[in-house]
């Protein structure tokens, strides 16, 4: 790749514009041929660009404003969704959506981060950054799922837990910690999908499961590339280097044995064709749920324990 460009979609947009211009002008058969040729070229170009995205560019795709969010996936994948609000302690948190739904005839629980589309909605959803109430609401739904023995699906897409004053006062760290411990010990099947940004502890809090899946262009990291760059390089501008160094892409995480499966995205990413993305995801979710649902719950629980127990790479020397 020549230059690592933030606006890597520009050639695609230019070509789309050209096609549009040509279509607007009346012309004969050769004009139609020319358009068809350009459309084919557009598709090839899209595939080529998306096939060689850098880690930083993947982060940009993961944050793409048109990317499908949890409520979109819920609409595509589940029926009878009933959203549940509030933590019954302090308030509701629109940055996390949670509720009851049906998946292929089976009642299930669903939890996910939720970002907004337009400015108003973005603010209301706090850009997908939950406060402690969000995690406590999520835990309420986990408890319901456990009590009534329903499988749980979670969808992860957050820049991180909200670093705000009130969030700290009300125990952001405690809420995340309890959620981690709770999810690790639920007896029900849990399938986690990282759909966009897997931002640190705020993502992990709802990402402990029997299966952890990642969309091809999603990211998962301990800190944002910008945050890492600011601390280790003392320069936010080094985000591209940080994105590469931290190994945040789906293939990286698969290699590090943190995720089980990478879910392919349509050419141009999930945002190019949300319906198609949902149906690709659907197939994987169905297969994964089937696999883990057939296990006795005690085996499943121990397998989940061992799955996370094995994570990490360290050395061990014997000197005694």
């Amino acid at each position, binding site marked *: 790749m020549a230059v690592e460009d933030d606006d890597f979609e520009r050639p695609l947009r230019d070509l789309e514009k050209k096609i549009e211009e040509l279509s607007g002008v009346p012309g004969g058969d050769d004009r139609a041929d020319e358009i068809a040729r350009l459309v084919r070229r557009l598709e090839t170009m899209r595939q080529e660009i998306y096939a060689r995205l850098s880690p930083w560019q993947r982060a940009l795709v993961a944050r793409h404003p048109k990317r499908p969010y949890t409520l979109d996936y819920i609409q595509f994948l589940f029926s009878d969704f009933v959203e549940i609000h509030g933590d019954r302690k302090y308030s509701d948190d629109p940055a996390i959506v949670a509720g009851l739904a049906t998946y292929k005839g089976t009642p299930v629980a669903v939890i996910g981060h939720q970002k907004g589309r337009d400015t108003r909605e973005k603010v209301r959803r706090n850009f997908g950054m939950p406060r402690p109430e969000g995690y406590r609401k999520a835990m309420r739904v986990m408890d319901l799922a456990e009590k009534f023995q329903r499988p749980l699906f979670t969808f992860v897409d957050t820049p*991180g*837990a*909200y*670093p*705000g*004053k009130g*969030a*700290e*006062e*009300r*125990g*952001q*760290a*405690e809420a*995340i*910690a*309890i959620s*981690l*411990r*709770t999810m*690790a*010990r639920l007896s029900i099947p849990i399938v986690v999908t990282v759909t966009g940004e*897997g931002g*640190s*502890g705020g993502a*992990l809090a709802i*990402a402990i499961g029997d299966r952890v899946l990642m969309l091809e262009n999603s990211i*998962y*990291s*301990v*800190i944002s590339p910008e*945050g890492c760059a600011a*601390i*280790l*390089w*003392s320069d936010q501008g080094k985000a591209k*280097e*940080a994105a590469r*160094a*931290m*190994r*945040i892409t789906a293939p*990286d*995480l698969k290699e*590090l044995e*943190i995720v089980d499966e990478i879910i392919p995205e349509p050419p141009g990413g999930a945002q190019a064709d949300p319906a198609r993305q949902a149906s690709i995801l659907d197939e994987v979710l169905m297969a994964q749920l089937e696999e883990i649902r057939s296990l006795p719950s005690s085996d499943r629980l121990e397998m*989940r*324990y061992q799955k*996370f*127990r094995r*994570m*990490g*790479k*360290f*050395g*061990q*020397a*014997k*000197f*005694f």
Partner: protein
Amino acid sequence: MDIAWFKKIRKPKQPVENRRMQVPEGLWVKCNSCKEIIYKKEVLRNSNVCPKCNYHFRISARERLAALFDEGRYQEVDTDIYSIDPLRFRDVKPYKDRLREYRERTGLNDAVINARGTMGGFQVTLSVMEYGFMGGSMGSAVGEKVTRAVERSLDERIPLVVISCSGGARMQEGALSLMQMAKIAAALGKLHEAGIPYISVLTDPTAGGVTASYAMLGDLNIAEPKALIGFAGPRVIEQTIREKLPEGFQRSEFLLEHGMLDFIVERREMREILIKCLKFLVNTEALAASAPAAGSSTAAAGSSGGAVQDSEASGQMARSREPLPFPTSIVARKQAQPPEIR
């Protein structure tokens, strides 16, 4: 949001042999909090606490161990675990060079020491974090060691005490460090279900992924005075909300006021208070009733460097004034040295 505190290290840390020197060198020291000039011996006599304003100077993990166990005697375990550089991470400096430097500087393999011994006669597992090693940051080695401490407590059915002192997860290990939160929390879930006591002690600072996992999961969460405790760092919060944080924000007293801590305890009373709590938490009868038929053996057993196999499984929770069946700390201080990282 994780280890911003790195940048605040004011001077290179002294080697462990001179670990008392964590209080600035010389005959007199200036308190970091009240800025008073104090006679150093007075600070040392006072458990490294400022006699004027009660500021708790940061002390090393080994000093804590010596201060907490009966007669200062304990056995270090899991000393053979060390960090590698799984991502070949390089920022302005390669991670493996940083690791080598901190090993030399602290004489430790990583940012936590696991030990066992007795406290007020109770057998306990203790995990103590060392801020001097890369800001106490949590990578795979720290995660593994804390998990082994939890599993040891689970296997031997003895209480766990973890003393946290950490800027959070270690960025140089990427998502692997993030996953340590999940790993430890899962182990603590088992411990919780087994009804085995866990006391979490938060010291200055406890932040990021450490707070948001094991530090907040104790049956009791207690802290030293004025410790900085939080999820996000103060600078990140100030940048986000674009306003100055009030004095004392995210300090122990603030957390206590907001209901996030059980109590604050001064360093010189720490041991005594922990023992008082253990008297309540260690209920031999309840534990015997809930004990699994055979040992709930986990991965840690057997693989740990120098773990003592204690025969009387059920009697372990009982208080005993018997001498410890293992060598004293002096022997254990001989560290296993990791091979050179390639």
